[in-house]
């Protein structure tokens, strides 16, 4: 009998048990919170629905930024800390065009053209910034240990932020309202802001396009080959520099689009606006499985929903005051929880136990 117990005990993985217990504890607390909140019945059904809608909308923004993040990561295995700032560069520059167009009245008389023009400018700016960053801060260090480009990425992030602070000033600039996107609309019985709907639709479309591109086109395959082994990829005839540059261009263009949409929703831009979305997008990308395109999208939506719903649903039931202050705690706890039960993120491929 004791033999058996011993046999069993020897085979238990304490790490797993500890980690799982940890995860379980979080879950239990969360469930208690949820029960508490439901018991309180503080919110109406409509309000609960609103939370979900807000979450999905915010999630769409996260998803959009996370796509670019995950793309660069997937190819270079590099946490591009500057991605949030590349996003800012596009949105901020787009503002000036928006303001001018608004001044001349074109902004609201030809909204779609204006929007496309602004997006184009934002994309170009983001792409230029990304290309300079790549050329100066990343390319020379491609063979260096992995922590080194991480540091230059951090340096690039500061540099971009404060460059634009110097160029455009430190104030908050207000994006003009675009009339056709003002107000709400009804989808499947849900009242949702028109801009939000735009963001959600666009992020899904872009995700699908990106996924198809990476997965099925020749260029996409070349990207994945470069991700695995640059030398061997070049032996296949793939121009590695070109592919990397393309990746940055793609990621930055997405960031530019995301920037303009972001500005349309929140109607303000300033030089520091990229920092927090950058980190959130990174989190979303990891939740979904970093490097994985649909994962980034899923991660973004989940993160958005949890942030919107979590404080009211979980924390308030636990009797925690000012619960919205702790929404990032929820976001990061969610991240830990996901990684505990799925160490490579929700959709990250399980690199079936590395080949020994």
């Amino acid at each position, binding site marked *: 009998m004791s033999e058996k117990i011993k046999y069993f005990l020897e085979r238990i993985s304490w790490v797993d048990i500890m980690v799982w217990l940890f995860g379980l504890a979080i879950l239990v607390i969360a469930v208690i919170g949820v029960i508490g909140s439901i018991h309180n019945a503080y919110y109406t059904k409509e309000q609960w629905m609103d939370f979900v809608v807000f979450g999905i909308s915010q999630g769409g923004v996260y998803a959009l930024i996370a796509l670019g993040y995950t793309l660069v990561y997937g190819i270079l295995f590099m946490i591009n800390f500057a991605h949030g700032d590349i996003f800012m560069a596009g949105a901020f520059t787009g503002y000036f065009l928006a303001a001018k167009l608004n001044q001349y009245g074109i902004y609201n008389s030809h909204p779609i053209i204006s929007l496309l023009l602004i997006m184009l400018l934002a994309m170009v700016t983001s792409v230029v910034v990304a290309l300079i960053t790549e050329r100066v801060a990343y390319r020379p260090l491609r063979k260096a240990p992995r922590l080194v480009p991480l540091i230059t990425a951090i340096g690039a992030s500061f540099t971009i932020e404060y460059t634009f602070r110097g160029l455009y000033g430190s104030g908050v600039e207000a994006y003009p309202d675009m009339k056709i996107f003002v107000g709400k609309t009804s989808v499947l019985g849900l009242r949702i802001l028109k801009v939000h709907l735009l963001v959600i639709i666009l992020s899904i479309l872009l995700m699908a396009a990106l996924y198809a591109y990476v997965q099925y086109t020749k260029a996409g395959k070349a990207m994945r080959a470069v991700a695995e082994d640059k030398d061997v990829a070049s032996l296949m005839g793939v121009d590695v520099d070109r592919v990397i540059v393309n990746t940055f261009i793609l990621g930055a263009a997405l960031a530019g689009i995301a920037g303009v949409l972001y500005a349309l929703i929140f109607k303000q831009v300033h030089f520091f606006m990229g920092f927090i979305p950058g980190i959130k997008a990174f989190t979303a990308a990891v939740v979904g499985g970093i490097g994985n395109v649909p994962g980034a999208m899923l991660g973004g939506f989940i993160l958005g929903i949890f942030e919107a719903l979590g404080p009211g649903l979980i924390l308030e039931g636990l009797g925690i005051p000012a*619960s919205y202050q702790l929404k990032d705690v929820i976001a990061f706890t969610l991240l830990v929880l996901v990684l505990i039960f799925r160490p490579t993120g929700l959709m990250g491929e399980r690199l079936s136990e590395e080949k020994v």
Partner: protein
Amino acid sequence: GKSSYKCEDPYGCVNVAPGQPIKIGAALVLSGPNESLGVDSLGGVEIAVDDFTAANKDWLAKGKHSIQVVKEDSQCSAEGGQTAAQKLAADKSIVGVIGTNCSSAGEPASKILSDAHIPLISPSNTAPSLTAPKTHAECYLRTAHNDKVQGKAVAEFAYKVLGAKTMATIHDGSPYAEQLQQVACDVFKQLGGKCVAQEAINVGDTDMRPVLTKIAASKPDVLYYPIFIQEGALITQQAKEVPGLENTVLMGSDGMISPDFIKAAGKAAEGMYLSGPAAVNNEEFNKKYEAKYGQEPPSAFHLHAYDAATMLLNAIKKVAVVDKDGTIHIPRKALCQALFSTKNFKGLTGTLTCNQYGDCADPKININKIINGKYVPVWPKK
């Protein structure tokens, strides 16, 4: 000729030789997310210096003096305040310092500079502890309103004038906002009202709808969020989009008094109330500012900063002894005393009188209403 002055001040004197500038420090937040506060205050200080120089040409001309502003970044943190203060304190030619912006930086800075017998006057520290009887530093003063004063005014206005019975508040985790809403809530309760929700967001948050939805569930008469431009504008806008807040009156404080706020919040800001110093929108000052920096003041404390600097310069002039050769001697203790004895000083923020703990702001708080994109004082009635 040789100097004939003998310094008898127990803390020593600053001697400014002919041709040398009189140096005053500016320890402000000049980097990071809060830097618009510092940039704004710095403008106030520099314009005050310009005005003082223009008004006191003769006094300065004797020894060919000028006034130099030595700026240091005190950031919005305790260690930043400490570093800036250490650096300024190490420079024996600094006469006085304007700063800091954030109360967290003011905590250590006030102690260090007081230890070095250099007065520190803050345009935007509002934490009560800085001028509380036991904890205040020896030579620390401020022209900003102690949170206790402003919070009280807000609560009284909401309860008495607006007739509100319930109030909700939001702060952004800054000591300033957190304290202010707490004071407002406390006073509101004393008056007989109810604080139905005290919520908080984080700096950098953009989606305020969930927190507003929560507040909407308690249907407050007044929503008070004494925070800064960025998040303030977002709350103002999104409050219009959240069902249940249609009849709630929005209120803020001086952190949001700025043209940038009107721009950022747009139409949603119409009809909103903001508490602040008596003269919030000084056209004349704004013109000077635009002429000098090519932009409008980015935040709301430039007038306080202007007053702080003017107060300091006036006190310097008052205690300074000009030598035959033009050397200016400034006794340090006397300067500090002169500052504390400031009475009925007509500044841009009102009539300032300093109490023994260093609070100098005019106790009169205005409530402004935003009408047609302008801050219009509506209370107290003239």
